[in-house]
C-alpha cells in the first residue's frame, strides 16, 4: 500500500472510530451531565430511563371483560353487555394560545363548543340543541377545573407554570356510529393538532324488559376510575340480585399491546390472544309469566280502587314457583302512586306483612306430622262455646278469638275450609313452645331466602314470643294462638312461597333463582334443594291439600267461594279441585314514616295447581292502609288464580310446540333474534346435560 493510500485509509477508519466515541460522549452527557432527566417547557421533566423509552414506543389498550349474559329459563335476554366507547381527550394548549389569558380561555371555550357539537352529531337525536348546550356547559366546567381558569387573572399574560396540559373525560357510553366517526375525525377537521382523543373500549349493561325484571335481575354500575395520576381501573358499584353472582364478575380484563410509529400514532402489534367468551347465567324466571304476573297484579290492585266500597291498596306482591325445583318463575311488585318502580321496595321480598289465615294449612300440616292433631277429631268452634271457655278464655288472653262467620262443629278439614280462627287456636294450643320454635325453623320464617337479594326483609315471629322472660302461660295465651292464624309473625310473599314449598317438598327446600351457568362453553347445573331434608308424610300433605282444594269451591262457607264464583263467571272454569288454595286476611297496625301507627289490612292467597301432585304454587299479597274490609278470597285470590291458569296454558302450548319441533329436545337457548353475542352454545350445553 502506498503512503497516500495508507493515510486515506487511516483517515477513513479514524472517522468511523470517531462515531462510537461521539455516541459514548453523548450518552455520558445525557445520563450523567444532565442527571437522568430532560427539562420540558410546561411539563414535568422527562425521566431518561428505559421505561420512558418503552412508554414512548408502546401503548397498551386495556379491554374490560364482559360481565356475561343473563337469560330467562327459555333463553330470552334479561341482561347483556353492550360494547360502547368511553372517549377521553389529552389536551395540550398550543404555544401560540398561551400568551394571553383571553386567548387561552377563548381557545378552551372553542374546544368545548366544538366537542359538544360533535357529541350531538347523530342526526336522529331528539332535542339536539338542548343537548349540545348541556354538553358544552359540562365540558366547559371540566376544562375550567382541569386548567384552573378560575385562578387566572381577568386579563393579561398567562402566569408561569399555569397548567396547559390535561387529560379529561369527553363522554362515556358513546355507541352511535355517526358520533363515533365525527369524534374520530374531530382533531383533523377542526385543526386541533395538540388534542388527542382516546377511544377506550368499555361495556354498558343493557336490560331488555327492565320494568319487569329489575327486582330479581338486579343492577350493576361500572365506571372507569382514576388510580393515581395516569392509571385507570374499572370499578363496579352497586351490584345486587342475579348480577351479584360470582360467575358474572368481570375480573379478568384483557389488554392488547400497540407500537407507536415515529409520529406517535399507534398500530397494532398483535390481536387478542384469547378472546373471552362471556359467561351465561340462566335464571329461573320465565319472562312471559313475569309479564303476566305484573299485568295481573297491577290490574287487580287498580281494580280494587275502582270499587266504591274499597280504596286502592298500598302495595302488592305476586310470586309464582315451580314446586319440583323451587324455581321462581315470576315475582311481581306493585306500589300505589306514580313512583318509579325501581325506586320503591321490591315487595315480594322487601315488604313484610302479617299473613293471617293463609298459614293455617302450614300449622295443621306441622301439627299432624307432630302427632298432636287427629284429622278426624271434631272441634267445637262455636264462639263462646263450652270448649272455647275451657281452652281459650281461661288463658286470660286480652283479645278474644273471633271468626269471620260463626262456625259450629268442625274437623280440621272443615277448619281450613271455613278458616276458623277458634278451631285453629285449638290446634295451635296443642303445640308446645319448642314445637312452635321448630315450626318457625321448618318453614324458614325469619331466616334469609338465601337468594343473595338486596335488602331482603327477614321478618319472623315477634321477638317477645320466644323471649326467655315470656312465661309459658303468656306464650300460650298470646303467641301460640296468634301464630295459629298468622299473627305475631312478619313474612314476605317469597317467604310464604318457600314455606309452602317446604310443606310440599321438605325442610331443605329453597327457592331458586339460577338454573345454571355456562362457563367457557360448559354447562353447569345449579343444584336444586327442593326435596331434601326431613319432610312430611305423604298422607299429611294429601290431607292438607285436600282441605285446600275444598277452600276454592261453591260451598258458601268456604273462604274461596268468591274467587270460585268469579272465575266461573269470567272464564267459565269450575275451579273446584282444579286449584287448591287458602285465603288470608289480617288486620294489623304498622308504623309508617310520617303517619305514625296506622291500621292496615292484608289480603293474601296461596294457590296450588294441580290439586294432585301440585306443579306450581302462587302467592299473592295485597296491603291496604285503612281499616276497610279487604278479604284475601276477593282481592288477592283472582290474580294468583289467573296466573296459575296462564302458567298451565303456556306449559301446554310449549309442550305442543316442542312436539311439533321433533329433534330439538326442548333445549333452552337464546332466541335467534336476540341482541349481541350471548355466548350461548347449545351444542356444548346439550353435551353437558
Amino acid at each position: 500500500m502506498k503512503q497516500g493510500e495508507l493515510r486515506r485509509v487511516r483517515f477513513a477508519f479514524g472517522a468511523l472510530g470517531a462515531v462510537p466515541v461521539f455516541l459514548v460522549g453523548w450518552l455520558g452527557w445525557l445520563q450523567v451531565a444532565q442527571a437522568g432527566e430532560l427539562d420540558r417547557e410546561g411539563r414535568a421533566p422527562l425521566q431518561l430511563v428505559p421505561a420512558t423509552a418503552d412508554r414512548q414506543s408502546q401503548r397498551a389498550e386495556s379491554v374490560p371483560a364482559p360481565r356475561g349474559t343473563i337469560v330467562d329459563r327459555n333463553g330470552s335476554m334479561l341482561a347483556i353487555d353492550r360494547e360502547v366507547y368511553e372517549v377521553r381527550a389529552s389536551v395540550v394548549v398550543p404555544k401560540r394560545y398561551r400568551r394571553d389569558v383571553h386567548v387561552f380561555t377563548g381557545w378552551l371555550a372553542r374546544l368545548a363548543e366544538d366537542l359538544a357539537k360533535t357529541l350531538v352529531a347523530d342526526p336522529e337525536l331528539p332535542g339536539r340543541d338542548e343537548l349540545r348546550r348541556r354538553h358544552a356547559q359540562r365540558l366547559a366546567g371540566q376544562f375550567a377545573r382541569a386548567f384552573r381558569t378560575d385562578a387566572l387573572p381577568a386579563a393579561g399574560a398567562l402566569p408561569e407554570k399555569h397548567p396547559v396540559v390535561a387529560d379529561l373525560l369527553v363522554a362515556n357510553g358513546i355507541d352511535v356510529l355517526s358520533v363515533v366517526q365525527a369524534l374520530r375525525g374531530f382533531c383533523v377537521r377542526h385543526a386541533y393538532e395538540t388534542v388527542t382523543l382516546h377511544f377506550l373500549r368499555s361495556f354498558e349493561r343493557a336490560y331488555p324488559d327492565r320494568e319487569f325484571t329489575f327486582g330479581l335481575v338486579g343492577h350493576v354500575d361500572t365506571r372507569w376510575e382514576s388510580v393515581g395520576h395516569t392509571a385507570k381501573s374499572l370499578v363496579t358499584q352497586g351490584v345486587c340480585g342475579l348480577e351479584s353472582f360470582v360467575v358474572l364478575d368481570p375480573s379478568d380484563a384483557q389488554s392488547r399491546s400497540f407500537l407507536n410509529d415515529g409520529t406517535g400514532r399507534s398500530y397494532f402489534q398483535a390481536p387478542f390472544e384469547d378472546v373471552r367468551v362471556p359467561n351465561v347465567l340462566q335464571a329461573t324466571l320465565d319472562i312471559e309469566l313475569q309479564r303476566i304476573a305484573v299485568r295481573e297484579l297491577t290490574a287487580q290492585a287498580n281494580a280494587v280502587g275502582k270499587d266504591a266500597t274499597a280504596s286502592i291498596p298500598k302495595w302488592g306482591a305476586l310470586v309464582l314457583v315451580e314446586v319440583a325445583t323451587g324455581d321462581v318463575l315470576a315475582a311481581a311488585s306493585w306500589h300505589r302512586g306514580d313512583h318509579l318502580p325501581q325506586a320503591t321496595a321490591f315487595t315480594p321480598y322487601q315488604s313484610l306483612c302479617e299473613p293471617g289465615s293463609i298459614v293455617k294449612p302450614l300449622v295443621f300440616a306441622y301439627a299432624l306430622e307432630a302427632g298432636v292433631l287427629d284429622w278426624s277429631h271434631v272441634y267445637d268452634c262455636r264462639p263462646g262455646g263450652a270448649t272455647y271457655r275451657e281452652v281459650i278464655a281461661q288463658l286470660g288472653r286480652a283479645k278474644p278469638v273471633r271468626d269471620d262467620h260463626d262456625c259450629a262443629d268442625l274437623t280440621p278439614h272443615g277448619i281450613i275450609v271455613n278458616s276458623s280462627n277458634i278451631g285453629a287456636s285449638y290446634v295451635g294450643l296443642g303445640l308446645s313452645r319448642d314445637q312452635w320454635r321448630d315450626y318457625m325453623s321448618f318453614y324458614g320464617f325469619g331466616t334469609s331466602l338465601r337468594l343473595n337479594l338486596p335488602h331482603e326483609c327477614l321478618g319472623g315471629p315477634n321477638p317477645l314470643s320466644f323471649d326467655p322472660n315470656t312465661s309459658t302461660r303468656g306464650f300460650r295465651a298470646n303467641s301460640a294462638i296468634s301464630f295459629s292464624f298468622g299473627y305475631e309473625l312478619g313474612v314476605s310473599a317469597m317467604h310464604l312461597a318457600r314455606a309452602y314449598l317446604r310443606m310440599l317438598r321438605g325442610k331443605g327446600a329453597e327457592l331458586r333463582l339460577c338454573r345454571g351457568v355456562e362457563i367457557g362453553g360448559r354447562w353447569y347445573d345449579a343444584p336444586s334443594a327442593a326435596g331434601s331434608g326431613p319432610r312430611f308424610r305423604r298422607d299429611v300433605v294429601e290431607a292438607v291439600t285436600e282441605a285446600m282444594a275444598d277452600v276454592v269451591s261453591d260451598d258458601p262457607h268456604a273462604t274461596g267461594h268468591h274467587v270460585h264464583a268469579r272465575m266461573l263467571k269470567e272464564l267459565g272454569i269450575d275451579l273446584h279441585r282444579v286449584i287448591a288454595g287458602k285465603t288470608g286476611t289480617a288486620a294489623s297496625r304498622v308504623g309508617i314514616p310520617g303517619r305514625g301507627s296506622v291500621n292496615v289490612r292484608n289480603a293474601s292467597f296461596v294457590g296450588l295447581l294441580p290439586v294432585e301432585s301440585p306443579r306450581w304454587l302462587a302467592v299473592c299479597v295485597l296491603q291496604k292502609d285503612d281499616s276497610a274490609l279487604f278479604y284475601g278470597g276477593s282481592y288477592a285470590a283472582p290474580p294468583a288464580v289467573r296466573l296459575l291458569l296462564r302458567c298451565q296454558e303456556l306449559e301446554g302450548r310449549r309442550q305442543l310446540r316442542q312436539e311439533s319441533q321433533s329433534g330439538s329436545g326442548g333445549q333452552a337457548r337464546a332466541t335467534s333474534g336476540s341482541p349481541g353475542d350471548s355466548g350461548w352454545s347449545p351444542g356444548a350445553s346439550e353435551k353437558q346435560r
Partner: protein
Amino acid sequence: MRWLLAGLLFALAVGLAIGTAAIRADNARYRFAVEQLLRDVRDRKVELERLKLQRFESSSPERLAAEHWAHLEAEATRRQEALQ
C-alpha cells in the same frame, strides 16, 4: 479490484439496509391501515349491537302494544279532525 469488491459489498450492505427499512416501513404502514380498518369494523359492530338491542326492546309485547295504541289514537284524532 479489491477496492471495487469492497465498494460493491458496501453498496450491497447499504442497499440491503435501505431495502429492509423500506419493507419494514411498508409493513408498518399496512399494519396501520389494517388497524384503521379493524377500528372501523369495531365502530360498526358497536353500532350494530346498539341497533339490535333497540329493535329487540321495541319488539316486546308491551312496546308493540303501546306503539299500536299510539297509532290508533293518532288515527282516531285524524278521523275526528276530518269529520269536523
